[in-house]
């Protein structure tokens, strides 16, 4: 039996990576979503959960606008809109909240997990949702577990909402001594099934996922739990898991053939998987992924790319696009750069692009216009204005709504970036 090597020779960088590269820190207007947006994908992942935002009409309007269309009769999320009298007396606000929750739970007996989601206004008036969650849990246990987290814009940026949600679940998980691998992050079911299948084929003994699909799925945490993050925005969840004694396995994220292989390899090394087994399990899907990427890489090769901060996926994606698609990142902006989480990706990202953290959107737009990148990755508020200035864009939100992780999606991921460029070539206007 041969032991897997931590860094395969093929990964050696010709240039130094970006781990120690200087970071441009910006503090100005941020053109980003708040953490409430995560509810759009979280509620689909947890079909027995309801997300009740305690907030304002703005919160409700954001959720509706970010969801794009209202496709559900009665979605598993809603907003308890604060009114004048709620602001006047907090005691009354708690009574009101209890009443709304009671009404909701009696109408929706399918709800097993209820998340009270804090918003900017609820945080500013210091409405204590932790206390509310405890009170409501006592009242509705065992049928419904009530938890709370903040998705407010004053505390969270876009994908941090998922981080806050998952982190809020960790303290309540039962303890276990079992040796297990925990995959952390809400992935589309198809992707989750594929990645779990690969880990199972590698012979990793017990693989669990956070969040569990239903309240009844058992999940414990303990000192023999090791975890792999599936998403780069889960820093607080990682910290919460570490506090429970679980150990983080640092790895590049599973974007592209190389990313997926390294992500799996990190787990395989941890669980002493035989090198031959690793090769046997990954060889075919790796080849498929490489082939699928190659089709898009023809379009992407040598094209420059500029990332506005959005989902925290920017660094791993820049790594994928630079190394597997031959793109040239000019600026990689992220709302936060958590080196403990994206360090492995920074190591692999060839030195050169400006790394920026935070945002001052008008200044960043100036930099983008000056650089005239072939492709700009940005939020929905910026995409059409940049297109109107002649710059090709890719809307970042699609990257969190679409299955993009793993071998079988690697080609799709590359195509997401290639399509805007192909479209420009195709149109004769």
């Amino acid at each position: 039996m041969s032991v897997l090597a931590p860094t395969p020779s093929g990964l050696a960088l010709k240039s130094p990576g970006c781990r120690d590269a200087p970071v441009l820190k910006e503090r100005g207007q941020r053109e980003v979503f708040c953490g409430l947006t995560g509810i759009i994908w979280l509620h689909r992942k947890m079909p027995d959960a309801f997300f009740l935002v305690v907030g304002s009409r703005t919160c409700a309007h954001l959720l509706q606008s970010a969801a794009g269309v209202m496709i559900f009769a009665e979605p598993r999320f809603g907003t308890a809109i604060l009114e004048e009298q709620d602001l006047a007396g907090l005691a009354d606000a708690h009574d009101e909240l209890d009443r709304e929750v009671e009404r909701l739970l009696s109408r929706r007996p399918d709800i097993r997990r209820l998340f009270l989601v804090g918003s900017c206004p609820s945080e500013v008036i210091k409405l204590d949702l932790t206390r509310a969650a405890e009170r409501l849990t006592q009242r509705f246990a065992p049928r419904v577990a009530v938890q709370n987290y903040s998705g407010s814009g004053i505390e969270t940026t876009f994908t941090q909402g998922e981080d806050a949600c998952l982190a809020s679940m960790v303290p309540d998980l039962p303890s276990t001594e079992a040796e297990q691998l925990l995959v952390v992050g809400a992935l589309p079911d198809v992707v989750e099934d594929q990645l779990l299948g690969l880990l199972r084929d590698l012979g990793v003994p017990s693989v669990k996922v956070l969040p569990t699909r239903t309240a009844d799925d058992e999940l414990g945490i303990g000192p023999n739990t090791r975890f792999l993050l599936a998403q780069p925005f889960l820093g607080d969840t990682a910290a919460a898991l570490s506090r429970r004694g679980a150990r983080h396995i640092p790895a590049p994220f599973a974007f592209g053939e190389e990313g997926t292989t390294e992500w799996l390899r990190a787990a395989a090394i941890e669980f002493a998987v035989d090198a031959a087994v690793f090769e046997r399990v990954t060889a075919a899907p790796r080849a498929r992924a490489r082939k699928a990427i190659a089709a898009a890489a023809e379009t992407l090769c040598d094209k420059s790319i500029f990332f506005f901060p959005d989902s925290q996926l920017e660094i791993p994606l820049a790594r994928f696009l630079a190394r597997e698609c031959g793109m040239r990142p000019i600026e990689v902006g992220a709302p936060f750069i958590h080196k403990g989480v994206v360090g492995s990706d920074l190591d692999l990202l060839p030195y050169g692009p400006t790394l920026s953290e935070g945002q001052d959107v008008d200044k960043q737009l100036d930099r983008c216009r000056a650089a005239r990148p072939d492709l700009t990755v940005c939020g929905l508020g910026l995409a059409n204005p940049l297109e109107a200035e002649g710059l090709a864009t890719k809307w970042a939100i699609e990257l969190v709504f679409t299955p993009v992780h793993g071998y079988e999606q690697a080609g799709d991921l590359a195509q997401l970036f290639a399509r805007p460029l192909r479209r420009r070539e195709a149109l004769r206007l």
Partner: protein
Amino acid sequence: MKLTVWTYEGPPHVGAIRVATGMEGLHYVLHAPQGDTYADLLFTMIERRGQRPPVSYTTFQARDLGSDTAELFKIACRDAYQRFQPEAIIVGASCTAELIQDDPGGLAETMGLPIPVIPLELPSYQRKENFGCDETFLQIVRTLAVPCERTPEVSCNILGPTGLGFRHRDDVEELSRLLEELGVAVNVVAPMGSRPSDIARLGEAHFNVLLYPETAEGAARWLERRHGQPFTKTAPIGVGATRDFLAEVTELAGLASVSTDESRLRLPWWSSSVDSTYLTGKRVFIFGDATHAMAAARVARDEMGFEVVGLGCYNREFARPLRRLAEEYGVEALITDDYLEVEKTIEALAPEMILGTQMERHIGKRLGIPCAVISAPVHVQDFPARFSPQVGWEGANVLFDTWVHPLVMGLEEHLLHMFREDPEFHDAAGPSHHAGHGPVKLRLVGEDEPVAPTPVNDGAVVWLADAEKELRKVPFFVRGKARRNTEKFAAEQGLGEISVDTLYEAKAHYAR
């Protein structure tokens, strides 16, 4: 506290953004946390605007709350002035900033900017988007409009169009054409299309055309009081309303007589021609903003020959006129912004068609009721590439097409009935001009199949097997009505069971 799943209106600061985005040379400095910038995508994605809305958000964060959010606001204000060089600035707070009470208006005033600074007080926890439009426009007008001489020729302003408005772009174009045909010049169109310097000369017009009371009534009333400009009261949506509007304008303009060219108007003939016979008495439910809903009621009843079975609006500000109109139509007014309540009402009324908003379109999809969209809240579909106004002659033509489109066309309806027992045919066949003709499982008449939803049967009345079978022979598009009428008839007669005879007795009873 009120649980809301979907909202008809955004918060009031979104109304202010709609006004600012419609204008040029105006900038909005909005004290708001990060995340509130989502509002930009309404304009760049839904309306497909090629520029960012002229809004600077302070995007304060939790860590700023302890220190100095007021300073952040001033920095944003200064940067916005320097970068965008606007003619005027509006300043205000979103719902969260309202709570921290930094007083953006007061702060901006102390900065000594060399341009007008217009403070907005938009109570986020009481009011909504339309109020935000109306109040913002009113404040802009109050601050900037100065007394001036009337134009030598008779002229008017068009008040109401904003960014992200339902067909505002095309309504302005159509309306301007109508006014031009009458010989009335358009002085300023505002807010959309105007600059602060144009607002200053609103007083040059002889009167105002209030196109959308929802967004500009406050300004129209103020201009009437302060500048002696009367304003129009009719929304020119539909044939009759357009004629009334033109008469109103003729009078306000002091013209001798109404001289209009109706050669572009097709609705009257389209509605009179025989293919439209099938529209007679179609039961429609109408819901939207009050102006569009009330206008739609008149068009539905008088110009399409529909039967209005329900009428409502989501903006309480206009509850009174809408209630009055509903009474005139003999229906109960539904004034609510609760989407679930609207759904419940539609379910109970089981209309054959909905004239509603995008929300009702979704309700219609679920209940299998065709729906045409007549009002905001807007969707990317409401910004078509083609010219598609709601007002004026062309607007009337558009209404006819839009409302008839979801229905089965006249002759086609007849043929569907005729051929319904042919094996190639099936009940689920909809109008041929609709997409989505996927493979549908073929069912023969009499085969067990779920028969249309049974909204009003509370279980008290039982359908006998033969009657149930007979009911299936009724064309699908009237089957719901047949079922409902029969059940109502049975209940009135105190019958516990419905037989084939009951079905036909009910049919005779309700025959028109």
